């Protein structure tokens, strides 16, 4: 099944990537080539096969409910685009 130009624009919005008409057109044909490749896998009969989400069948470890991190906000915020008063700055979101 081929994607449409509208699909590309919708998915770009969901992924929060700005895309203009020309870019959307260019990417559409490339993505549809990839989906042609993916279609080979869709025809396979997988009834009764358990999905494999990880390489090894291991269970999640539990850890002690203990403090392991120290306060390093100054170091971490030193690489942020915009900070003021220990806070990350973004455009106003509430009127």
């Amino acid at each position, binding site marked *: 099944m081929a*994607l449409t130009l509208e*699909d*590309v624009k919708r*998915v*770009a919005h*969901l*992924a*929060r*990537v*700005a*895309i203009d008409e020309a870019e959307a057109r260019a*990417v559409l044909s*490339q*993505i549809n*080539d*990839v*989906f*042609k*490749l*993916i*279609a*080979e*896998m*869709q025809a*396979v009969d*997988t009834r009764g*096969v*358990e*999905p*494999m*989400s*990880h*390489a*090894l069948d*291991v269970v*999640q*470890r539990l*850890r002690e409910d203990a403090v392991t991190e120290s306060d*390093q906000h100054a*170091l*971490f915020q*030193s*690489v*942020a*685009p*915009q900070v003021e008063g220990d806070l*990350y700055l*973004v*455009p*106003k*979101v509430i009127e």
Partner: protein
Amino acid sequence: MHNATIRSLATGLAARTFSSVELTRHFISRINGLNKKYNCFITLDPEASLKQAEAADRMRSAGKGRPLTGIPIAQKDIFCARGWLTTCGSKMLSSFTSPYDAHVVERLNAAGAVTLGKTNMDEFAMGSSSETSHYGPVRNPWDVDTVPGGSSGGSAAAVAARLAPGAIGTDTGGSIRQPAALSGICGLKPTYGVVSRYGMIAFASSLDQGGPLARSAEDLALLLNVMAGFDPRDSTSLDREHEDYTRELGKPVKGLKIGLPREFFAEGAAPGVVKAVEEAVAEFRKLGCETVEVSLPNMKLSVPVYYVLAPAEASSNLARYDGVRYGYRAPEYADLLDLYKKTRAQGFGAEVKRRILIGTYVLSHGYYDAYYIQAQRVRRLIARDFAEVFKRCDVIMGPTSPTTAFRIGEKVDDPVQMYLNDIYTIPANLAGLPGLSIPCGLDGKGLPVGLQIIGNYFAEARMLGIAHQYQQATDWHTRAPKDID
């Protein structure tokens, strides 16, 4: 000095024949002379490297030297290293100085290894040619008009050009083994979970695995001895007893059963590649190995499965790049949504955006079962094929890549052609199995061919021993590109 293996450099350091400072200076001066030609390194910091070298010399003087103490190692720019610019080959992280060390970097530092620099790579490790980097393409030292493979192409080319004795990389669908093959060096992707992913910038978390690149199997073992280890900060890190990966280097291969999957020698593999691999297999027979034809019937589905799972996981992992907490932020925007969209449109390159769009689509409402869950089911069929094959043989051998190095620009605008480069490497990632690539010949153009050895889970020591025995009997791994003295 630059043609020596890590093993022999370690011997020289231990005997005080030269110091780590001298060794590090030597490699820095080679990089200064040749990096323009190959574009292997994104960031160098000679002052920081030499400081580590001085500390390593003191460690050795105090009798605390370990095999890697004082050895300069190049790091793929996907590993966070405190105080180092860590870009992942992307404009998105072009101003990101890491505030912390990856687990692998911590372990290398503790062993006294010297960080020689951060190597160029495909943006966010998405590629098989090292052309999608924000910092320009890496060039293959065997022929500068060809690619070194990818995504760990800077690491592979640096080792091939004798700009570093060893390097570290990551492998999600072949990103250590394929560049090792195309650049004529050795590379190992360990069993999933052996090397911690903490501080390794995430691409597809169920597939990503760090590993070493070097010029001999023995050197890979020395590097893996330091890189591997349990780390509670990676929820998929395996808590296993520490192994010495050099322990089987001396073990003869007589009686070893080698499986040759017929799908690895089918159409699609270049004749020069098949010939070199068959000659390598013949060498193993001479060493007393048996061969048996086996089949991985679902192998051809690996690429389609991978291009659902990897983009899906990538679209989720790369959601963190929002222009707020770190990394690039678009200079102009109207509101918060516009900030996100413009930051991501400007900060990511074309291939990364394509994969984010594919991943977002296959995970979106109404398509999740048909794509993502179906891909996970086929993934299990592929893993089962390997389990069946390993009942009949000890290791699998075949080509690492269907072709030798291709020309820069040849495949970069045709994603599907680029993706098919990884047809022989992706299956091991999907199953979580260890895979390694070693040089086994040259094709008609004089470009290196890689032999891939895939083992069962946790068979790294055995595989390295097998590769080492081959390297005792042959000299392909010592061949250097003709421009390298």
